């Protein structure tokens, strides 16, 4: 996965509203209007969230007459698997960063000994 894709996924999954939108889309496609309903949020705000999800490749929008419904890009179960994968990747990267911090700590302790 390219770093920019990972960044987009990180952003997409980090936000609870976006996770809730994905949950809603798992039950079928929906318009921005329909997605906005359960949230105390404006349509432009929901639209912004959907754009982030689009950029991460998690959802697509199609044109259907006047409607532009949003749908999960992958079939739902596959999306779930990829969700877990992304969540795990997030922690993997954080713990890889922790390895570097631990190395710094060890070097500092050696120096002060």
């Amino acid at each position: 996965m390219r770093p920019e894709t990972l960044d987009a996924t990180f952003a997409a999954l980090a936000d609870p509203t976006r996770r809730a939108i994905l949950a809603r889309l798992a039950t079928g496609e929906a318009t921005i209007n329909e997605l906005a309903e359960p949230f105390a949020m404006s349509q432009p705000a929901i639209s912004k969230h959907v754009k982030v999800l689009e950029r991460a490749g998690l959802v697509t929008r199609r044109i259907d007459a006047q409607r532009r419904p949003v749908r999960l890009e992958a079939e739902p179960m596959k999306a779930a698997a990829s969700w877990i994968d992304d969540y795990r990747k997030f922690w993997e990267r954080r713990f890889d960063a922790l390895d570097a911090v631990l190395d710094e700590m060890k070097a500092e302790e050696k120096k002060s000994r």
Partner: protein
Amino acid sequence: MPADRSLKFERSNHALTFVRQFDATADQVYRAHTDANLIRKWLLGPPGWSMPECTHENRIGGKYRYVWAHSDEQGFGIGGTILDLKPGTRIVHTELFDGVDMGGETIVTTHFDEDGGVTTMRMCVIYDNPDVIEAALATGMTDGMQMSYENLDRLVAN
């Protein structure tokens, strides 16, 4: 034996568990989890992200709060209370994501176990409601999907 730096992931009804080894003493890994200055160094996200808030009161009953920000993205935060601390051995804390998170507050227990200079960390995230874990993992596709953990395991394995 060098540390196994892969992240292991286990799942049961009420809990998610991450297992990871580090080439460091249990005391060092523990400190990296309880000292705000050290936490900030490794919890910071990919390039472009910053942490405008990273506080961690290192005592039982203390609060912690981590906030991530990005110039083009909506930021997010996690916070909670430290329930138990045993230096070099164990941290127990509550964890709550900002906003309308589906998971609600979880209890996270992190164990550090050192053997020959390698520390094995087990981070166990416990949910009150077993449904929540499925929702959190499967992005909420519980209604009508009848998705079993077995299905999911198979998919992840493929």
